[in-house]
């Protein structure tokens, strides 16, 4: 259901990433050209080592492409210096990692506002309150990460990713460490963030059930984009994965 009104929040063209030198080179990404559309929830799937994390890192400006380009909100990352990249991450990108998402010395509230605080930016208070209530964290705001459960910690991470109203949220296996119930909870929040708050999310996952929350799935194998699926269901994803032989 790719309609012509869709615009890309982030895209790559001919993205290639090579690790190592000489005999031991590893092609983590080979000529990947993808677009992640605004207001969509995109999942990236693929076998271990297929380059999913590498793709995320290169879109986020955490890593440099060997060739090709990554563009976020019209900015070509390869042209930017460290300071500009840092500011870009702070203002235009939200992150959710698999674990260790939070700064242990800060409270949940401070963690949520961290990118804003770092930018000396008050942010949109109305929006932040909306995010906090969407992820049901109102009564946990003064707690430090060590006092929160794994699921609560991930919810704080989701809230943080949303707090600065970024152009795109990148999540690398955000539910990988959670049990299925808690995982489902987090995925529901992410879905809500797209549907109700109009956010753009790209998520890496191994779980067909998690991927089924997305609007569109991109399949990677061996550093290539090998397939794509829109409006997935868990069964269709599972079938596709089997046919891709992973």
């Amino acid at each position, binding site marked *: 259901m790719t309609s012509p009104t869709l615009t890309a929040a982030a895209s790559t063209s001919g993205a290639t990433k090579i690790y190592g030198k000489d005999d031991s080179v590893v092609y983590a990404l080979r000529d990947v050209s993808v677009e992640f559309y605004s207001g969509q929830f995109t999942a990236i799937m693929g076998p271990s080592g297929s380059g999913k994390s590498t793709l995320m890192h290169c879109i986020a400006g955490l890593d440099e492409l060997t060739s090709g380009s990554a563009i976020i909100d019209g900015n070509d990352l390869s042209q930017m210096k460290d300071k500009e990249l840092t500011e870009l991450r702070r203002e235009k990108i939200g992150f959710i990692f698999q674990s260790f998402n939070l*700064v242990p010395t800060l409270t949940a509230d401070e963690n949520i506002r961290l990118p804003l*605080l770092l930018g*000396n930016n008050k942010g949109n208070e109305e929006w932040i309150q909306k995010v906090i209530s969407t992820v049901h964290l109102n009564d946990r705001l003064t707690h430090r990460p060590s006092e929160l459960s794994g699921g609560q910690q991930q919810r704080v991470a989701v809230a943080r990713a949303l707090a600065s109203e970024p152009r795109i949220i990148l999540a690398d296996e955000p539910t990988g460490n959670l049990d299925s119930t808690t995982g489902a909870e987090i995925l529901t929040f992410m879905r809500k963030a797209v549907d109700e708050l109009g956010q753009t999310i790209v998520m890496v996952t191994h779980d067909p059930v998690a991927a089924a929350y997305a609007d569109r799935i991109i399949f990677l194998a061996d550093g290539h984009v090998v397939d794509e699926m829109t409006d997935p269901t868990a069964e269709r994803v599972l079938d596709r994965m089997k046919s891709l032989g992973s």
Partner: protein
Amino acid sequence: MFRIALKGILGRKARLVLTSLAVILGTAFLSGTSVFSATLNKTFDDLFADVFKNVDSYVRSSQVIEADFGQEERQRIPVELVDLVAKVDGVTSVTPDLQAFARIVGSDGKPLGSDGQGPPTFGGIFMESDVSLWTIAEGKAPVGPNQAAVDQASAKAGKLKVGDTVKIIGQAGSREFDLVGIASYGDVRSPGGATFALFDQPTASEFLAKPGFIDAILIAGDDSVSDTELSRRINEVLPTDSKTETLTGAEITKETQDQIGSALAFFGILLSVFSFIALGVGCFVIYNVFSISAAQRQRENALLRAIGASKRQITSAMLVEAVVVGIVGSAVGMIAGIGLSQGLSAMLRALSIDLPSGGLTVPSSAITQTLIVGTIVTLASALLPARRAGKVPPLAAMRDTAIETAGPSRKRSIFGLAFITAGIGFVSAVTAGADTSLLGFGILGVFIGVIILGPVIARPVALFLGRPAARFRGVTGIMARQNSARNPKRTARTSSPVFIGVSLVVAVTALASSIKGQIDSVFSEQFKGDFAVSIDSFGFGGLSPSLATDIAKMPEVAGAAGLGLITAKLDGKGQYISAVDPTAIAGIFDVGLVGTTYADLTDSSIFVKDTRAEKKDWTKGSTVNLTFANGTSQTFTVAGVFDGENISDYIINKSVFEGTNIVNFDTSIFIKKAENVSEDDARAVLDKTVKDYGQGELLNKREYIDSRSGNVNQLLGLIYGLLFLSVIIAIVGIIITLLLSVFERQRELGLLRAVGMTRQQVRTTVRWESIITSLLGAVMGIVLGIGLGWVIVFALRDQGLTTFSLPVSSTIFIMVMSFVVGVMAAIYPAWRATRVDILNALATN
């Protein structure tokens, strides 16, 4: 297991370097000071062996009065003895020797050398002979009352050349001489940076000492008999009533070396005290590094435990690491210490305490001491962390955090408080009248208590100190504040060296400012005049008593009184005795006579300091027997007591010396100007008089009082210099801890960078954490240092220290400095923190 231990060491090179660094610094100071002391001793030994190289016999007066600090005052001998000695069979050459105060005035009119500081300025006899070390390098030897020679270094410094007229200040005043020669000493231009003016014997005796008298006779024999036999023969020809003694060359060499040796021994002890303080401070750093590395390896160790390693194996693996680090670190520290000893010489030179430059002496005892002490200290510091590492439950391998999280225990609070309470108990017992020696226990108790309690107070205090950072530096400040409080044990251990260093600095400063305050208030009270002439001539005489009487006669002056100082034997012990003219001094200088007046001081009476009189159980009318330097004795009746400080314990009338050959000089002259003369006018004429006289310096009341505290400042400078090394170790301790924390927080830093923290902000966070840690140590140090200073001042109350002054400006300065230290210590760790590879940091699960 040992293989694992060694692998562990080599596997983490950065950690090894950091741990070793702490050991290196601690031991470097230890080795540096022992090498320095040994080199110094050797240099002086060589110097004197050289001086008396050709001397076979040595004749001097047997009349000597020994005073405090190894000072001695020996009588001079008549020059006629030289001829007697020359006739002795086996004697080939005799040389009269004299060494006294003299100051050469350069061609620009400025006297060479400095007043009271730096190398001494001497005058002596020049005579070409086998035993003299002086040789004429240029020109000829001085002959007669108008000729002089100077050493090469002085000639250069004063821009003097042969044929010039040179002004020299001696005991007899200042005089102009024809400069006929420039002399060199052995193969150096001047011995140890001292200046030397040389004359023929009659001129030297008359101008520098007393006509016809010399210090000693240096004798060379023809080697037909042993030195002992030669000395015996010489001694035989000397009349018994000349009160002389004859030493062999070996004896006088040994005696001089021993004298210098004991003077240096004090310095050596001072140095080793401070090197042990530095080592103690280093222990904290070593202990801290091992604790942190044990914590960081918790998971690794837990894994080893889980797969079957015993507690003991874990502990001993860590101890093996400690031994290796200890040996390697001490070895490097030993070498670094040699460099440090050179630095110490340079530092003293900067304080213009010039040392003869000799070779480097590295005694084997210094090497073994450094290696053994260094290794033991490292091992001891690692003991506790190693034991704790062994106690790690295998389950910790499954846990997520590898950070020390244990909060301070109750037991710790109780122990700490118990020590502090006991310490305060001792101190208050002393204030209530118990023996002063208990103060030491009191101080130790409080220090140990505070160190034990450190982790308990570190968190609240760090949070409090970090408040401004959190408020004004935004989220980076908040994180810095939380970081410094997140691991209270570590923060406390890191700030402990700062705390110890600062408390010592503050205590010493408080003591010094109390002493200065005391000197100030006492002199302000005692000194009723307007001006003073002051002199510092290294115990070689002083101002001629005639100067005071001359000044008193001036029309611009209402009165002037000289304060003389001699040494005399009392009950077999040398004592300083002040001598005054009672009529002149009344109304100008008040020593605080109690129930008596200056008028009571006759030529057979004596005033005694009240505390001394009490100790000796003397009252008015008791008798005191004094033996003067010329060997004569006199009995004095105690005429009264005085309570004034900063003057010797006894005062006699100057008239005692009239008609005797007792040498006496004034150390200060106090002057009251005539009422109708302005301060400026009086100063102008007095200044001219003193300048013409050539010796001493005219000061107004304020300047005089300040000059009295000058010595305190000099000592303070030395102690600061020595404590500075402890402070450096403390700073390095902060650097090491921050670095280890940065390594430990890789992931957190990676996360922060990923979500948009700039490098600048990373730096700010680390910097503020460092500042908070440093301030924490400084605040605790200042509080304890002031307490310690007060206790020391209290302990010295018998020595006349009655007021405690708080060093306010120094305290503020130390706070500012600890801030700066925090900033500087953070430079490298902060830089490292900005270099954290975000992807790597995030990948380490």
